[in-house]
């Protein structure tokens, strides 16, 4: 155990030494990784926020079945049964005519007084089917329309949230495309940072040769560079994620209304922990892979 610790200490001290002596090259490699993690983090920040926003909207998405005036209690009960039996429907709320008027007033304030000036309450009662998040809103709306079509108490079925499905599809595509682009960019970073690190290795080519000649195994020679790559990836990712979060907070604080509304949609919440951890891991992987790439022909 102590020999392992001694080895680890040796590799760490060699890595530090290597960093000190190739400061420019190592700083460049770190900056490259940090820039990519920052870019990837910014994309993931927007995707995660828009996704969370869509999830909130979906939770509020509902299909409204307007009832004919004079639809009886039994017809309403039958419709509630049909709606509750439809897959994707979480629950059914009944809004009577007075409730509809009250809601209109709460939304439009004094403008809703015009409706009050009309003779009687022209707003219809309705049944609102609240949709489960996991199901396709458009498909559920279609199923509801099919289920209640021809029922005597139904005036109209309306659903204004089918854009959520399109948004979901868009987010799915963005995530898949982003993942693919991320892998490609990361591979490019490994090549780039690896080539930069290879300059450091070549600069120490004579030393590496000496180490091998006096009996060091390739792994013994490579290990300090791997440690340096690990620390580089770690530092670059931490730096990039901190910068991203600082920029997000600064922008939210500095952005005046109403532009801030859009900013809150795309960057209102910080990057989720799991995604931050994934980016940190990607940065570390890039650092270590770059070191391996730099030593590919040892």
């Amino acid at each position, binding site marked *: 155990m102590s020999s392992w610790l*001694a080895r680890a200490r040796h590799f760490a001290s060699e890595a530090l030494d290597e960093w000190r002596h190739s400061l420019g090259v190592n700083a460049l490699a770190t900056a490259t990784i940090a820039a990519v993690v920052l870019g990837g983090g910014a994309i993931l920040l927007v995707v995660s926020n828009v996704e969370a926003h869509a999830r909130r909207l979906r939770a509020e998405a509902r299909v409204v079945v307007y009832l004919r005036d004079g639809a009886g209690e039994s017809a309403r009960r039958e419709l509630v049964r049909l709606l509750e039996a439809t897959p994707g429907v979480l629950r059914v709320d009944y809004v009577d005519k007075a409730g509809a008027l009250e809601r209109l007033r709460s939304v439009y304030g004094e403008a809703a007084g015009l409706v009050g000036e009309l003779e009687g309450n022209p707003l219809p009662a309705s049944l609102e089917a609240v949709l489960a998040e996991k199901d396709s809103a458009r498909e559920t709306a279609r199923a509801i329309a099919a289920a209640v079509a021809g029922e005597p108490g139904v005036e109209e079925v309306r659903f204004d949230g089918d854009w959520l499905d399109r948004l979901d599809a868009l987010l799915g595509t963005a995530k898949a495309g982003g993942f693919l682009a991320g892998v490609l960019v990361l591979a490019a970073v490994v090549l780039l940072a690896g080539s930069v690190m290879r300059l450091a290795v070549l600069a120490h080519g004579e030393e590496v040769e000496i180490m091998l000649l006096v009996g060091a195994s390739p792994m013994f020679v490579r290990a300090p560079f791997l440690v340096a790559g690990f620390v580089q990836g770690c530092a670059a990712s931490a730096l990039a994620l901190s910068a991203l979060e600082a920029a997000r907070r600064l922008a939210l604080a500095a952005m005046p209304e109403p532009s801030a509304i859009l900013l809150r949609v795309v960057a209102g919440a910080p990057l989720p922990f799991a995604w931050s951890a994934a980016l940190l891991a990607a940065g570390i992987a890039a650092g270590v892979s770059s070191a391996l790439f730099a030593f590919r022909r040892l």
Partner: protein
Amino acid sequence: MIRVAGVTKAYPGGNVALCEISFEVARGEFVFVTGPSGAGKSTLLRLLLRQELPTEGRILVEGRDIASLPAREVPALRRSIGFVFQDFKLLRRKTALENVAYVLNVAGIPRSEQRRRAYNALRGVGLHHRAGALPETLSGGEQQRVAIARAVVGEPRLLLADEPTGNLDPDLAVDILRLFREINARGTTVVVATHDRDLVRRMQRRTLVLDRGRLLDGGTLP
């Protein structure tokens, strides 16, 4: 200790550095390999360290055929051989003590033991007072002595030296060879490649004479 049988080393392009060389070196022997520049002395030593592979023939070091040694066993072979290079090959960023201790570090010797043995090895070559000096601050002779300390600190049974006095003035060269003789007296087999015939004559040891890749003399044990 060493058995070289029918070894040829040819490079792409047809340049033959060694041609059907055969000789043996007994355990505890001190042998010179001499010949003019380009005779194949350095190539021979590189083959013994498994820096290069022979085109033909076998090289046995302590009974092991080093040409057929798997790559993963090469570091252990090199750790069992001390090697002194003409151009010293010291690690520039390490002090004299660290250079010597590196060999022990590679072998997994505990740090305190590394430093103690490295210091003793430096004392053995009279350089313990320069233990903290970087190679660039040392003279050529001092650097060569650090390199010798590094070569012997692991107590190898075989010490190879490639033109160890090539960059040194004559007085220093004699000093260095005296060190080799002392090391040899402790039981280490020593093979020194040099083109300095005066030095060889003065030492009066078995000499393998190479010329244009062929062994002219000294291949048989005395």
